[in-house]
């Protein structure tokens, strides 16, 4: 009997060992075959089918990480993908953007899965909301906004079904545009569609997509970035698809290419695909042609902020693009800087060492025995080992400290620059009131009075424009200084300089009318706006306690 139990136990041990041995054998075999296999595009895809589910069938691992962006939330000290209201966190911006839609609603964007959804939902795109919140003349965003937010852009240009866009071309379609011109006759049709798309209202374009593909975020009108934005459907090679980027790059001396948009190495492409949207841009002319102001930025050189001054000064002089908006209280002609990642990062040590955007934002991962580029595009904070430690030997903790070191300093200087610019705006406001009562202006009609006072204060308003561009460049750039700490520090330094110079200029200008005002050193605190309740979920939410503490620490110089 004792023997029997022993036999049973021994037998069971043999069964478990046998099972384990087989599992090990199978695992080794599986990893070996994974190593040998490479993706094959068995499932045919094309430019007219941007549905990411279809493309993903060929690349299930990449697709899974891409779709991960739908639910991935990360809060980093100054950025991340939690869509809190930046206006509530840093309310000074509402004063700087006064008279422009950004002063009403501006949130941290979510990840690329939401690039279209965020755009559709923001109040900046809501005509009625803006009309009732201080912007009565706002008519709605143009189709040019669609460029970077839809995964359908190439389809919109090449698909014959969008007949409304191909017929009756607008005037801008006659301009030379290397992105299209390099493609010969086909390109001309695409150019007609693209220039028309820029000029018609934003929601008209999205409606065309919705009528054809529905409204879902995987293949319909709510689709944000898609595989087709960066990959060629024939062989998945990298390409750029945004016409404005190629046009701007050719103007800088690079060469257009019919298949990949621009002639470039693979490593260059790993940045170019990002740079086709993460830039400063504006809408040129009556057809709202999307344009990058890069003609003063020489080929292969790091960017300098003065290159924008030179460009936009010229545009002001020739009247082609005097400003994005006139500041509501001061009447200064303001150029709004967008998210100039391409420009600032070109000055950073990473880009200058040949590190591409994808190296840090799409780190390599292991999936079984395969090395795969992560398509969950996000902050390197999410995976410091994958993003940083490929090159840097230090521990994760040390590397995180380095990022904090740069960003905290940037934040501190940026708050000082905000105080200086607020002071200038406050003083110009006072000056305008004083001048309005001055005999030279008192008797004029409202509009003529406004124009005459603006003329009298021309110098200080120009300083506001300069200082604003620098604040906005440093504020709206997504890395909070990290992409190019040295240039960012230089730009913020100039912001303060221009703002204070503006006050000096103002005092001199007022002297001509025998008016003296006390110049502001410490501006009044700006109240945070109310949370907008129309948003869904966390969009436009109040920044978390953790972020508010970081801001307090920065303010009190409480950082390492």
């Amino acid at each position, binding site marked *: 009997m004792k023997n029997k139990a022993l036999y049973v136990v021994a037998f069971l041990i043999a069964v478990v060992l046998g099972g384990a*041995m*087989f599992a090990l*054998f199978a695992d080794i075999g599986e990893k070996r075959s994974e190593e040998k296999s490479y993706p094959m595009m068995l499932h045919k895809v094309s430019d007219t089918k941007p549905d990411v589910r279809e493309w993903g069938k060929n690349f299930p691992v990449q697709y899974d990480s891409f779709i991960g962006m739908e639910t991935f939330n990360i809060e980093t000290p100054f950025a991340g993908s939690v869509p809190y209201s930046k206006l509530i966190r840093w309310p000074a911006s509402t004063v700087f953007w006064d008279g422009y839609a950004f002063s009403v609603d501006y949130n941290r964007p979510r990840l690329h899965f939401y690039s279209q959804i965020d755009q559709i939902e923001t109040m900046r795109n809501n005509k009625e909301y803006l009309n009732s919140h201080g912007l009565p003349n706002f008519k709605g965003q143009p189709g040019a906004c669609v460029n970077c937010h839809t995964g359908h852009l190439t389809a919109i240009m090449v698909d014959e079904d969008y007949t409304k866009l191909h017929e009756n071309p607008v005037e801008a379609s006659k301009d030379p545009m290397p992105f299209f011109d390099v493609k010969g006759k086909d390109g001309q049709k695409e150019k007609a569609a693209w220039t028309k798309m820029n000029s018609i209202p934003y929601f008209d374009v999205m409606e065309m997509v919705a009528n054809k593909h529905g409204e879902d975020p995987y293949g319909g009108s709510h689709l944000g970035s898609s595989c087709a934005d960066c990959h060629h459907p024939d062989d998945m090679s990298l390409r750029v698809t945004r016409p404005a980027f190629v046009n701007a790059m050719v103007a800088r001396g690079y060469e257009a290419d019919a298949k990949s948009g621009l002639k470039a190495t693979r490593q260059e492409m790993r940045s170019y695909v990002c740079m086709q949207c993460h830039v400063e841009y504006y809408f040129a002319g009556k057809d709202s042609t999307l344009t990058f102001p890069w003609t003063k930025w020489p080929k292969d050189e790091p960017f300098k902020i003065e290159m924008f001054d030179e460009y936009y000064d010229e545009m002001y002089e020739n009247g082609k693009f005097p400003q994005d908006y006139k500041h509501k209280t001061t009447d200064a002609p303001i150029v709004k800087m967008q998210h100039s990642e391409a420009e600032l990062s070109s000055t950073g040590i990473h880009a200058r060492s040949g590190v591409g955007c994808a190296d840090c934002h799409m*780190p390599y991962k292991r999936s079984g025995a395969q090395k795969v580029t992560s398509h969950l595009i996000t902050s390197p904070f999410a995976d410091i*080992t994958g993003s940083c430690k*490929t090159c840097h*030997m230090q521990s994760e903790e040390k590397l995180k400290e380095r990022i904090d070191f740069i960003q905290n300093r940037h934040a501190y200087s940026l708050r000082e620059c905000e105080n200086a610019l607020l002071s200038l705006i406050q003083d110009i406001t006072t000056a305008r009131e004083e001048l309005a009562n001055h005999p030279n202006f008192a008797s004029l009609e409202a509009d003529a009075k406004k124009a005459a006072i603006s003329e009298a204060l021309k110098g200080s308003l120009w300083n506001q424009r300069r200082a604003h561009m620098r604040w906005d460049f440093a504020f709206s750039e997504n890395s909070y200084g990290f992409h190019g700490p040295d240039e960012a520090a230089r730009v913020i330094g100039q912001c303060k300089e221009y703002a204070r110079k503006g006050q000096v200029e103002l005092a001199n200008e007022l002297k001509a009318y025998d008016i003296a005002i006390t110049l502001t050193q410490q501006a009044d605190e700006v109240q945070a706006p109310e949370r907008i309740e129309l948003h869904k979920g966390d969009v436009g939410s109040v920044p978390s306690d953790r972020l508010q503490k970081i801001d307090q620490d920065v303010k009190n110089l409480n950082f390492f």
Partner: protein
Amino acid sequence: MSKIIDKIKKYPSTFAALLLIVSFGVVIGHGLFTFVYAKGFSYMSDDPLACKNCHVMNQVYENWMKGGHQQVATCNDCHVPHDFIGKWMMKAESGLHHGYAVTFKENPVSFTATPKSKKIVQDNCIRCHGDYAAFSVDATQKAGSSISEPLSCISCHRQAGHAHNF
């Protein structure tokens, strides 16, 4: 058929013993096969190809192939102690750890050396280069400093073995 069943009933313990022997035979046979299939014997050698059996070592191997030490030192020269007991204890321990990690864990692209591994590498630098380098290596900060790690040879000569991943 019924004859066999009768025999089993007659000698149950002999049958149980037989079944047990066959079972363990299968396990051992399968085990040996898996060992050979997984190139188990290569791990007894000093051949870098043994390290490259595992896919996570491919990049490091490629780096080493292009590096300055390729003609004079293999993986084991730097990464394994050189006394007999130390070497085989290390191999056994690493074998278990690595086997576990490759089978059950998702491994990162970049690795970080453990303090133990760093010490072995440092000892091995000195083993070959001690004649002229021994005096310079201890001249720096003390180990355990809160600001930074003490300098080791690879603090500066980072690419001596392979460019990254240490």
